[in-house]
Each structure stands twice: as C-alpha cells, then as structure tokens.
C-alpha cells in the first residue's frame, strides 16, 4: 500500500489507554511471585526501575500488558502485577502485535533478550518495527545466553569462548540499534541497566511514543558474562566512553566535555576533540530527522568494544502505526457498508427450489 493519509489524529502512545487518578506506587506493580534471577543479575535493577517508573504514567494497571518470549529476561512478566504472557522463544512481538492491533486501550510491552529478539525471533522483530505497531520492545542485551547456560549470542564479541565455542565464536555480532534503525524503527533508544535516571528517561519517551519503540538495555549477566559493561559503569571510564544524546544539544562528552561528534566523509559521523572540531561544527542532536542515515551513523559511532557508546534516544519520528491503520480500515469498511450477515451469505446469484 502506498502511504495513504488516513487523516488519523496525531495520537500519543498512551492516548487511548485509560488513565487513573488513584496514586500508584512501585510496590503496586510487584506481583506476589518470588523473583528468581541469579543474585546480582542486571534484570533486578531494570525490574525495579520499571516498577518505579510505571506509576508516573498514571495508567490503569489492568490496561498494561507485558509479553515476553523465552530466556532469563522473559521471566519478567511473572514479576509484574499487570496482565502478562510469557510466550514462546522469539515470538513475543508477533503475539503482542495481535494483542495491540485488537486492543488500542492497552499499553503493550515486549520484554526480550539478545538471543530471543535477535536470533530465534529476528524475523518478528524487524517486521514489527517495520510495521510500527504501537508496542514497546525492551531488549535486555547481556551478550550471552543465560538460561541455556552460557552459549554465545548474536551480540557476543567475535571470538567469545563458551561451552559451545571452545575455540572462540566466529560470528560477527549485531549492533541492535543499527539493526532496529535498518528495520525502519520509528523510536530507538539505548540505556544502561544501572543508570536508573537515563533508563527512566528513555522508557518515559518510549511509552509516550505512538508506534514501535525499541529500547536496548545493556544488562549484566553476573554468571556467564560478568562485567561485559563494566567499562561503562566505572565513573572515569564511563566519562570517556558514554556519549549522552540530548535533543537540541550539541553532542559532546568526556570528563570536561572535551570530546564531540562531527560529520565525516561518506555522510558518517565521527568522534573528535572539540578543540579540533570547533564548537560550531559539533552535531546538534535531532532524533526527529526522518532520514534514518543520521541515527544510523550515530549508532555506528558506538562499537562492540564500547569505546564510544551513545545512550539516550537515537530516533523518534512520527509515522502512521500499523494497528491504528488496521483499525481505521475496519471502521471505514463498517461505515461504508453496514454489516448484514444474511446479505453476505445470500450473495448475488441464487436460485430457489420450491
């Protein structure tokens, strides 16, 4: 279909979800189930952050649904006192698509991991992002398979030695942010599990976004890949490596803000010293640029070794959502032709036997 303007009102991500006046607390979102992740797992902090952040949305709790696939992170729904489904390995985006398409009054969240989303479920992920279904996809990236006990994942470093790759893994890893952008995602963000403030900011914007919001969360697996993101957690190292993205502001970082991002050849972006680049040539971050090239170039500044790691919102553009349009077609059809089952069954060519 060509991009038909269906005259849909510009909606926010939560505009059709019933709100509540009742004050909510983080503990209202805790289920009675004992959380069974390994001690020290990054999933705990993410769970706590989400449980503290959800009350700020002011939504009726019964209108929030968490859908997950399989893996450590996919146990998430059991710990949330909302509706939830722990589904099949890789299939959560598909299941959530059916739910979100038929139920505009729900805030639907997909919780997935690097194996679940990028390996077995890669197909569903890219197509869901392409369609721009109104759901939020949180990818907990720990760069390892946890639940199956430590095999390498599609985001593991090349050469990772695991039980299944004793001589080192051979695959080139995915950059999940690049992948999402390549799949036409209308919202792409990244945050660190331990950065409560940064994560909350990205999640809040994701929730408000109408369409698919993809958030990569770097998450530590203390058992099989401990310390994978330690360089981003050490205060001094982090200052050298993390590039915070703030809309409308020049992109710069470093302990003294001495580094910045500027344009390079081939339409790309590169990191340099602000002193060399010059303040005027620093890129001012604008996540609303329609052309994905900019956000993609930004995603390529980050690398597997975390030397430079942009965090925050890479892309945030408005685009019609699949589910809004699907519902609009159903409504349009019903307005054009009132449903008459008898007329449908009878059709045009009949004959009568007396």
């Amino acid at each position: 279909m060509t991009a038909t303007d269906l005259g849909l009102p510009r909606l926010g991500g939560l505009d059709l979800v019933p709100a509540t006046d009742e004050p909510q607390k983080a503990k209202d979102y805790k289920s009675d189930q004992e959380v069974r992740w390994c001690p020290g797992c990054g999933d705990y902090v993410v769970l706590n952050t989400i449980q503290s952040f959800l009350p700020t949305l002011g939504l009726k709790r019964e209108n929030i649904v968490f859908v997950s696939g399989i893996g450590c992170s996919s146990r998430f729904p059991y710990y949330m006192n909302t509706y939830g489904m722990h589904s099949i390995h890789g299939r959560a985006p598909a299941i959530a698509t059916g739910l979100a398409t038929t139920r505009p009054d729900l805030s639907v969240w997909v919780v997935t991991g690097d194996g679940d989303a990028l390996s077995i479920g890669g197909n569903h992920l890219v197509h869901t992002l392409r369609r721009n279904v109104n759901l939020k996809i949180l990818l907990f990236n720990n760069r390892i398979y946890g639940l199956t006990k430590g095999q390498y994942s599609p985001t593991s470093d090349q050469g990772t030695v695991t039980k299944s790759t004793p001589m080192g893994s051979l695959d080139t890893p995915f950059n999940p942010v690049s992948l999402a952008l390549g799949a036409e995602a209308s919202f792409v963000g990244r945050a660190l599990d331990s950065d409560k403030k940064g994560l909350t900011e990205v999640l809040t914007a994701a929730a408000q976004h109408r369409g698919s919001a993809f958030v990569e969360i770097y998450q530590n697996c203390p058992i099989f890949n401990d310390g994978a993101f330690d360089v981003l957690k050490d205060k001094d190292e982090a200052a050298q490596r993390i590039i915070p993205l703030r809309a409308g502001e020049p992109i710069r970082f470093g302990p003294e803000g001495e580094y910045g991002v500027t344009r390079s050849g081939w339409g790309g972006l590169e990191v340099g010293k602000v002193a060399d680049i010059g303040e005027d040539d620093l890129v001012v971050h604008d996540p609303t640029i329609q052309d994905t090239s900019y956000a993609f170039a930004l995603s390529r500044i980050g690398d597997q070794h975390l030397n430079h790691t942009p965090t925050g919102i890479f892309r945030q553009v408005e685009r019609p959502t699949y589910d809004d349009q699907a519902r609009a077609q159903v409504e349009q059809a019903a307005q054009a032709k009132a449903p008459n089952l008898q007329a449908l069954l009878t059709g045009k060519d009949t004959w009568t036997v007396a």
Partner: protein
Amino acid sequence: MSTSANGSGTGALSATRPTEVSQLDRVVIRFAGDSGDGMQLTGDRFTSEAAAFGNDLATLPNFPAEIRAPQGTIPGVSSFQVHFADYDILTPGDRPDVLVAMNPAALKANLGDVPHGGTVIVNTDEFSKRNLTKVGYDADPLGDDSLSAYEVHRVAMSTLTQGALADTGLGKKDAERCKNMFALGLLSWMYHRPTEGTERFLREKFAKKPDIAEANILAFRAGWNYGETTESFATTFEVAPAKLEQGTYRQITGNTALAYGIVAAGQLAKLPILLGTYPITPASDILHELSKHKNFGVTTFQAEDEIAGIGAALGAAYGGALGVTSTSGPGIALKSETIGLGVMTELPLIVIDVQRGGPSTGLPTKTEQADLLQAMFGRNSESPVPIIAPCSPADCFDAALEATRIALTYRTPVLLLSDGAIANGSEPWLIPDVGTLPDLSVVFATEPNAPDGSGEHWPYVRDPETLAREWAVPGTPGLQHRIGGLEKADGKGNISYDPDNHDKMVRLRQAKIDGIDVPDLTVDDPSGGEARVLALGWGSSYGPIGAAARRVRKKGLPIAQAHLRHLNPFPANLGEVLSRYDTVVVPEMNLGQLAMLLRAKYLVDINSYTKIAGLPFKAEELEGVFTDIITSTKEVAR
C-alpha cells in the same frame, strides 16, 4: 454464422435450429487447456450457469502449482471438471462424458479418463506439428483413427474466435485469448444453459476495460452460434433442475464457505475477529475472502511468516478477540509450537489446515488428507486439541461454526481440517437463515474467582462441567494475572514444577478435550440393519464414499455408511457403532491414519483402503472396493 445475434452484444441468445434434444439425468464435463487458457474461469462460469439453472452440481478444479507452466506441455495442463444433475449428487464425477481439449497436451493428459463413446471437443488450431511433438504425439491423433472410440468434434476455436472479433479492433493475440469463452458458448448451447449470467459476469469483471468485456461476450456468442448454425452438432442435451430440498441456494466453494463461517462465528459470538495468516496454497483464498469483510469487525493480518500469523491470532485471543489462523500442512508444522502454547494457556483459537499433497512442499495444488496424525499429535508432549473436518464445500460453513463453538466453550485451539478438493470445489448451498444459527456468545470473567475467598484472581480455576478456565481479558480491573508456556499450578496458575501438579495438569488438559460434547455418529443404512459392512470416512471423501455406497446398494448389496466430522474427540457412540459390523472399511487419502486411530482406541480390525494420488477417490473405484468387501464378508458369514 448468424451475424444478427453475433454483432451487437445485446439481446438474449435463443436456440432456433431444430436439434434432437436428449434428456439426461447427469453430465460430467471437463474443460482442459493450457494453464494460461482460462480453463478455471471457463469451468467456473459453466458451473454458475448450471447453478442458476437449478441443477445439483459438484466441481473439481485441477491445476499445476506453477502460475504459467511451460506452454503446451503436459505439466502445464489445467482442467476444471463439473458434474451437474437433476438429482442430488455427491461428487464431481469420475469420468468426463465430455472433454473439451484446447490443445494436444490437454487431450493427451485427459483422454484416458474419457469413457469410450464419450464426446471430445478439440481446438484443432492448436494441433500443429510443433505442439504435437512437444507432448510426444508422433502422428496427429485427429488425423488417424486413434480417437475412433470417441465422438470427436473438431472445432477451429482460435480461428473462429479471431474471425468473430475481426471488427473489434482487438489485436490477433488478444482476440485469440477469448477462445475459452467461445468454448463456453458452444457448451452452453449444447446443454441449454442460461447465458445472461455469464454476459453480466463478463461486463462486471472487465468493467474497467469495456472493449475486452465486449470481445469476450462476442466470443461467447460466437461459440453459441457456432453450435446453433453448423450442422456438426446433431444433438443437444437437457439436464432438468434437481429436486433438492426446498429453499434458496447459491453456489459456494469450500474456502468461501469457510471464510463465511468465520465471519458468521464472529457475529454469533459478538467478538471481533483477527485472522493472522501467511499466504499458502490452497488456503490463501480464505485470507482473500476475509479481507473483503472488514465491515464485520474482521482484521486480517498478513504476517511475516506462519509463526507470526498464529502468534498474532493467539495474542488477539488473549485480548478477547476470536483468533483465527489459516494455512496448509507445511504451515501447521511451523505453527505447532504456538498451538502448544494455546493448549497450555487454554485460550480459544481456530487453526485451519487446508490439507494438500505432501510431505514437505509436496503437491501444493493437489488434495490429500494426510495431516490427521499431524493435527492429532504434531506437537511436543501431551498436547491434545479437538479436530473437526468438513465433508463438502458447503459443509465448511457449519464446520467453522462448530470449531468456534468448541474453541470458545472449552478455551482451546481447535484444528479444522479441510483439504484442497473441498477448498476449491464447489456445490450448491442451501443458504441458512441467520436467525436459526447457534448463539456462540461468551462471558468474560469480571470478578476475582479465588475459591479461598482471598479476592484474588486465579486464572486456572475451571468450570466443573467443561473444565474450561475463565477468559479474563486485559483491561478487566482486579483480574491481573500472568499466563505462559511454563507449567501452571492447578487453580492458582503460578509457575509450578511440582511433580504431582504436573501429572494432574496433563490429565486435566486431556480430560477437558476428551470431555468435549460432540454429537453421536449417525449411520445411514437404508437396508434397515441388514448391512454387515460399514463404510466409514472423514473429510472430503464423503462424496465418493456416499456415491459408491449408493451404487452398491443399487446392485442389491447392503452397506452402511457413516462419516466422522469430529476426529478428536470421537463421538461417544463410535465404539458401539464399530462393533455392530462384521467389517469396517475406511477409505482415506493417506496411508491409513484414521484406521490407525480407530484400531488403537477401539481394538477393532479395520479394513483400510488408501490412495494418495493427489485427487479425490472415484466413486467407481470405491464401488469396486465395497462390492468386493461385501461379497467376501458374505462368504465368510456363510
């Protein structure tokens, strides 16, 4: 050739030349040509004419999987068989009384099915040396006596069509493409068919290209007038309207009936529908049809693959919609894991499998009923699902309603096994009065249900009668709960690895399916209990089994017939029915899958008759099988 009727494209065609009119009770016609020759359309139109005239009918389209197979070759032959009669018939017919062969390949591929004395109408224009060589004819069969056993009509259809369209300004090639309508016109004349419907159809089909519409109508009329004016056809034939049950009828294919059944099910259940699906032959027409009926609250989601199709359907079901997915056997293989999740989460879901020839990609456009065991057991672990199979194109409507009733009442995925023969085949359908259709409405949970009075909601509390759990949809305050693929604690629904709980839950899921209320099996035995042999079938073999049973009864041999619509669970009286007969013969288009289930469950011997040719059984073939069995059973009894 009369130009008056030929020229204007208006006014009704009427036969004036006195021909001998022969009254027949039934006729089987097969249109065969190249896959680009429009044989499916031609057959379909003739069928509509027969329907409009009030005949009973059944059709069998047969076409290659390739959209345009190499021209003029045997693999490229596409055919459409229609059987019409003045009484109620059950099959598309075994052998064509009339074969229309548009080229040598069509003649060669189909002649073997025409009984001696049958009529063969050939398009002589295509019988060039090159075309003959292409299909291995050393000599032109029209030029020697190799067709002497048939009544052959040689008609230069391409030339005549081009001649009739000479003044239209249409290019030669485009004009020649209308030759299928010439053939249709000729056959319509031979069998006194009404023609207004076809002309109206052509005008509607080519509404945006009126010159093409008129060209096709001209060709159609030229064919009619050819019969009328040339003397080569001495006899025309009449098949009187059938004395069917009173009421208003329409013609319908299985896939359309199935799609209508789904639309109706949504209306009767007062639920929105989400069809999540991926295109696959021969099921795609269900998607095409349902996508036309969005005004009934139908959302059609063409997913990225089979798995996402059923995933979306299950997600919609979790949200309180009627979730439906449609596919064929290879798609079921991909959907198995999600069907398992549906079994575990106990959500209603309609899974349609329009079976085709297999294994693997197999014979995409041919029929088979070899997915029964896949439907029954094709998932990991103990994962029972109910199975329903329609027995004819029109029956697909009722089967869809029945599948929905079971899915909604028992909160379970239901497998509906149609197949290529009934999906594409058509027959008259006594249009139901919507007011008489069953109420399928459901009740969603609104209040916490914990039996301990805690005010909690326990998702796996069951109805004591049906063993179904409550359908508590997101958005309902106070009923927040989590479900998923991990084993659930009985009642409370939390994750449970407790051995005794698992044992209990496996048995509960099985008991729920086993306890589904299905109607008893009825047996048709006009001999009043004299029959010692029971012919038992399922699915699309109903027609040929029934037609064969009629034939052997006509010969004075008693035989009882029964047909299973419910394959899981079986009707409660099935064991008793089986025990009544000395011999139970089960014809199946597989290697004996129902026979295996019956033997396992009832410890009875089954006489399994199987054929997996990609085509429905012939009544003639089963007549022979039944006759032999009845005769030998008698001998044993003696």
